[in-house]
Each structure stands twice: as C-alpha cells, then as structure tokens.
C-alpha cells in the first residue's frame, strides 16, 4: 500500500477533548477494575480455602492465639511452619509449644506482624525460636509470592497496602491474576474440604503437613546468598526481653543440595545451630519442606538444642 492511501484527509469526526479523555479513561479503567477485583476476592472469608494454596488455608491462626501463653514460640518461614512440630518439642522438653510461622513472603512483606501480635496477646515465652531457610536469612531481595500479598491485603487496610502494591506493580499484576484465576477455578470446581487438615493443624499446635509425597531427588533452584548478619542480630536484640531468649536457626537442607556447602559455611557463627543435612526422602516440597518424619527429626533436634541451652543457662546462673 502506498503512503498516499493513508487517510490524512479522511474525515475525522469532530470529537471533543472531553470525550476523548473519557474514552481513554474508560479504556484504561476496565482492565484496572478487573485487576482491582482481586482485592475484595482476597479479602473475602472463603478465599484462603479457595486459593488452593496450603500455606494460605489458615492465615489467621497466628493472629488468633490469645492467652495460650506458650513457653516456646516457633516463628519463621515455611520451613518452620512445615518442619517444626510443637507436639514433639513439648513432649521432649515439657514446655508448652506453639508454631506461628508463616510463609517466607509473608515474613518479608508483612514483617513480623504475626509474632508481634502474639506477643501482645500472650505472656512472654521462655524461648522464641526463629527458623529460616538459607535464602530467607539473606535480605538481598524480597519475594512477592501470593501468600505475602494476600496477608498484606487481609491484615492491613487498603491505604496501608496500596504503597507496597504501587511500588511493585508487576508483582501486584501477577498476584491479581493469580487471585482471580483461583476464584474462577473455585467457582467452577468447589475446593476440597480441609477439615482433616484443620484438625491435624490444631492438634499439632500449628504444624502444617503438606499433602505431598516424599521427594526422590534434589532440584534446588533457589539462588544462594550470604545471610545478612545485621538483620539476624537485630532480630535477637529486638525480641530478647522480659526473660525471653531468642534462638535463630537455619533450616535443614537435603544432603544432595547443590548449595549445602556454601549454606553451611554462610550460616556458621550467624545462626544458633549448624546446618543439618537430611536424606532427600525426608523432604516433600522444594527441597525445603519436610515430611512428617522429617519434621519429627528436626523437632527432636530443636528440643535437644533448647534443653542444652537451658542447662547451659542454668549452669551460668548457678555460677
């Protein structure tokens, strides 16, 4: 086609500026409203169940504990949520234990709101145990996974949440589409009833058992970054008050993990434990989340660590 055929002289409707502005606004408003529809969806009571995300199915648990006054409070990322069994720790130590850990992105986006809320509503614990995966110990980047933004929208007001979403528009977009797709999927096919999982969760004091089979090989795809030492120290300083002692641990890795070496070296002298390497068969998800057997082993190790620390402290006090 020759350029002459362009419609330079074709009749242009006399369209007013206001009408053009309204057109552009409407064109942009429709997709914007579509994305914004994710906000009421996420804030609805049924969404955690509808999301199909096991890390979201009980997002209010950590905030719901009032006057339970646990001696040991387990906090941290999803490795703690799925890997430290309060019933095992309680059995081994004799201390009442609860697990209020949350997924990594919740910890990174929402901060330690769950822990702070717990401490406000309960007596100071004897121990706060914080367990993080090696990559969570590094503050080099924030992950914007759905769990974090979901909790942000559910626990904060829209005005408080909006700055984070505006600063991270790409992540906000992906989240919106994820939430809307989850809602549509739930409408098409009602989600599974989590009554059994709920009962187990309550009975185990907050341990989440993922409905997954044991892994057979490593596929670690998390890039490793050195821990942020100041952040770890800051956590201890912030929460070691009123007789509470803070233990910060690194979560176990499979022995086949390609980052096992650097992670062990990186956490040395930073965390209160040394990195444990477990057989891959004790993991069921992402080389990070443990099977019930893996959680039992990790919980026993934690109990032994706490008892040893308690004895050491008692020794110091006697002297």
């Amino acid at each position: 086609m020759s350029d002459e055929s362009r419609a330079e002289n074709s009749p242009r409707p006399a369209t007013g500026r206001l009408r053009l502005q309204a057109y552009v606004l409407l064109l942009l408003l429709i997709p914007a409203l579509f994305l914004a529809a994710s906000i009421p969806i996420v804030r609805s009571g049924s969404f955690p169940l509808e999301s199909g995300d096991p890390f979201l199915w009980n997002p209010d648990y950590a905030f719901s504990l009032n006057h339970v006054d646990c001696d040991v409070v387990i906090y941290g990322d999803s490795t703690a949520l799925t890997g430290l069994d309060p019933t095992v720790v309680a059995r081994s130590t004799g201390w009442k234990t609860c697990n209020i850990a949350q997924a990594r992105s919740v910890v990174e986006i929402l901060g330690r709101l769950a822990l702070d809320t717990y401490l406000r509503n309960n007596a100071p614990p004897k121990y706060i145990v914080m367990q993080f995966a090696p990559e969570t110990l590094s503050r080099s980047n924030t992950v914007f996974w759905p769990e974090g933004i979901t909790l942000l929208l559910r626990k904060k007001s829209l005005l408080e949440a909006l700055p984070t979403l505006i600063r991270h528009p790409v992540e906000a977009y992906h989240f919106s589409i994820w939430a809307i797709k989850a809602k549509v999927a739930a409408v098409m096919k009602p989600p599974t009833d989590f009554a059994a999982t709920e009962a187990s969760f309550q009975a185990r004091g907050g341990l989440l058992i993922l409905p997954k089979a044991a892994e057979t090989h490593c596929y670690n795809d998390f890039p490793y970054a050195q821990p942020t030492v100041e952040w770890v120290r800051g956590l201890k300083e912030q929460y070691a008050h009123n007789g509470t002692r803070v233990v910060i641990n690194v979560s176990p890795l499979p022995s086949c993990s390609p980052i096992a070496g650097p992670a062990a070296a990186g956490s040395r002298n930073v965390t209160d434990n040394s990195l444990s390497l477990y057989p891959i068969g004790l993991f069921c998800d992402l080389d990070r989340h443990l099977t019930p057997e893996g959680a039992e082993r990790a919980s026993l190790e934690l109990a032994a660590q706490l008892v040893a620390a308690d004895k050491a402290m008692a020794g110091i006090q006697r002297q």
Partner: protein
Amino acid sequence: MLFNSPEFLFCYLPIVLLGYAVLGKFGRTAVVSWLACASLAFYAYWRPEFVLLLAGSIAVNYACSRLIWRLRERSRAQVVVLTLAITANLATLAFFKYLFPLIHFIDDTLGLHASFTNVILPLGISFFTFTQIAYLVDLSQETAEPQDLSGYVLFVTFFPHLIAGPILHHREIMPQFAPGRDFRIQWRDLALGSSWFALGLGKKVLLADRFAPYADAAFAHTGSLTMAGAWVGVLNYALQLYFDFSGYSDMAIGLARMFSIEFPFNFDSPYKATSIIDFWSRWHMTLTRYLTLYLYNPFAMGANRRRAARGKSNSRKAQRTAGGFASLVAFPTITTMFLAGIWHGAGLQFIIFGVLHGSYLTVNHAWRIFRREGSILARVIALPVVCVGLTFSAVLMAQVFFRSASTHDALQVLAGLSGGHGVGLDELSMLPPHAFLFLLALPVIWGFPNTQEMLGQVSTVRANIFGSRALAMWRPNWAWACSLGGLLVAVLWYMTDTSSFLYFQF
C-alpha cells in the same frame, strides 16, 4: 523489554507517557531528550552493556553524518567517508550476526571440532544499522538534511521501533521531531494510539501465542512429521508469524501514535495478497521499501547502465526479450532477495528462503510481462480463490525454511507435508481443539478488514475475498472503549507467561 510484558505495561509506559505529558510544556528539547533517554533505558533493560554498542554506533554515524555534510562540495572525500562509514556498520553487523555462525558452519563442514565461543546478537542491531546507513546514503545525495544530536539519537533509538522496526525513513520521521510542532499530549492521538496498541497486544497474546505451541512442536520433531502433523504445524506457524508480526507492528505504530508520532504501515493483510509481488508490498512493508530503495534500485540501475554501454535498449519492450528480462528483472530481483534472506539470519535456510522468494517474484514478473491477456489460464489464475490460494501456498513453502533450524529440518518438514513420513490422519484425533484454531483464524484474516482499516487510517477499505467491509469502524466512543477494554482484560488473563516476538531475532 517486551511490549507484552507487565514491566513495560505497568512501569515503563506509564512513566514515559507521564514524563512526556509533563515535559511537553517545556518544549522540544525537553521532550526529545526525555524520549531519547527513555529509549536508551528501554534498550538497557535487556542488557545494559549493549547500550555502549548502540551509543557507539550512534556516535560514529552521527560524526560521519556531520563530516559527509561538510564534505558535500568535495565528492571524492565524501565518498571515502561514506564508504568507510558503511563498511564500519556492516562490519559490526557481520561480527555480531554472521561471523560466528560462519565459523561454526566451517567447523562443522570440515569436522575441525574446534571450540569457538559465541557472541550474543544485540537486539535490533539490523534495524538500527540499516536505518543509519540509509540516512548516511541519503545525506550524501543531499536528499536528507543534517540533524541536531538529540533529534538524531531519538530518530535511531525511539523505543517503539528500536528492536524490530518498522524500518523508518528519515524523511517521514525527522520532520516530526523538528522544532515547531506541539509536543504536548494530543488526546486524539492518545485515544487512537492506545486502541491501536490494544489491538496489537490482543493479536500477540491472544492469537500468536496460542498458535505457537503447535508450531514449535512440529518444527521440533521434523524427522517424524506425518503429512497431517506437518500441515497442522506449518499452518499454525503461518498464523503465529502473521499475528506475532502484525501484532508487533500494530503495537509499535500505536505506541508511537500515543506520542503523536506517525509511523509508516508495516503490515497490510499479506495473506490477502493476490500475487507474490502483492505479498511483498504488504509484508514487512518498510523492509520491502528499504530493499527497493537501497538494493534493488542500485542493482537495476547498474544493469541498465551495463546494457546501455553495450548499446542495448532498456525499454519495457526490451524486458520482453529473454536477455532483457534476465538482466533487467531477474538479476536485480533474485540478488536483492538473496541479500534479504541473509539479512534474516545466518544459515543456509535463510538464503534458500530469500532465493525462493526471489524466484517467486521473478516468475510473477515473467507472468506479468509474458502472459497472454484473456487466455483461459490467465482468467483462472485471476480468480481470487486461485490467486490468493496460490500465493499463500508459495509463502507457506518458503516459511518452512524461514522457521526451520536448518536446511535439513526444512527438507524433512517438506517431506512430511508431501506425505513422505506417512499420512497420519489418526494423529489429528489426538490433538486438542486449540490445534485447529487456524481453521477459524484463516477466514477471519481473509474476510475481515485489517487494523488500519478498522481504525480508519486508510482512505478506502479494500475489498477482500469475502467482501466483508461492514465491520464497524473505530470511533472513540463508549462501545469501542468497552470492547477494547474487554480485550485488554483477556490479554491480562493470558499475559502471565510473556513470550518474545519472532522478529526480535533479526
């Protein structure tokens, strides 16, 4: 950064538009500098280190342009500078695009098994190199004018065309960056540009990316393609390429229009073409124009001169002789398309693609020149179904070479198409319904107006083989806003897995 990525849509574009709206009040320098910086940032997002290459290319070419203009009274010196500049441009292009594939080819052919590292092909290198060569050539012929640095930088880098065209001609773009125009937001252009962009984005995300998996699957297993599988794969690829490039072109034109810059059309329903000559006037139109101006015309003029020197005629009548046709039509056409094939990529399959199209064009010209008007064959071929079908089939065969990873693969696909690996009709029942989306898409392509026709950007909507021109023309009203807004909603739904554009590899 891809036009169909959330980063572009939710971060880059709003910021650049906002900056344009604010700085527009301060006049040309502020706007041109802003858009040039934003365009460099757009390029840097891919690989920051390659901005140095782009900036170096611009600096050298701009310096050469000043020198060429200054030497316009001394033609010999000017030719030397122009030759050096073109050589430097082509050498850079050859290094990044052709050197290592050539070394690997020699290595494979001779069985040397030496290890050579590859270089990364800088995005858009062909486009910004050719744009600048054309400007230098025209400047030396005084058909272009010297530019200030910021205007030149923006001409080369303006982000809507930087990565994959359209290949801009300075005459149509430079005046739009010149002093004197209003650089503030024009709401009519914003409305039109955003609609154009939305249609292009829809073509890419909702159509091209849906065809891609079936095309990719077919071209990944060329050795075992049955006839049915090959046809499904090749037709899916034809539509993937069509909507990918058409969508990209619409997005580029729409983006430019948001800033009140008019780009030339680059895509005009090529599958509606009634001949190969017609096809190349509709497919990658700015490349065709470039090839015609800077390759075909010089070759044709050279042929004219050589014949004239031998005392032979160059008239239309001379074209009707075998010798005249060979030197005046066939030679410049095939040579130009041979080079066009090389431009598309390093590999024998691209050369075959070019030569095949050169041969098609030559046959088409021969038919045009030698056919007997009114013969039965001429009347049959003139039927829309026949000529469009024939052209489309020829294009499909060439696209097999265009898409294949090697000539061997292309020949395997052609063998598959002709039933060399079995018919495989039973395979069709195992394919999901989406694999046959092309059966719906082809009638739409042939039967409906294209984007620029719908948007009222051509003075007449051409008739097409189904004769449907009744589709509502675009108007900035609520119905269109709601329709395109709905289209954008569908795009957002599917855009979570961003895919690149096919023409980015060139």
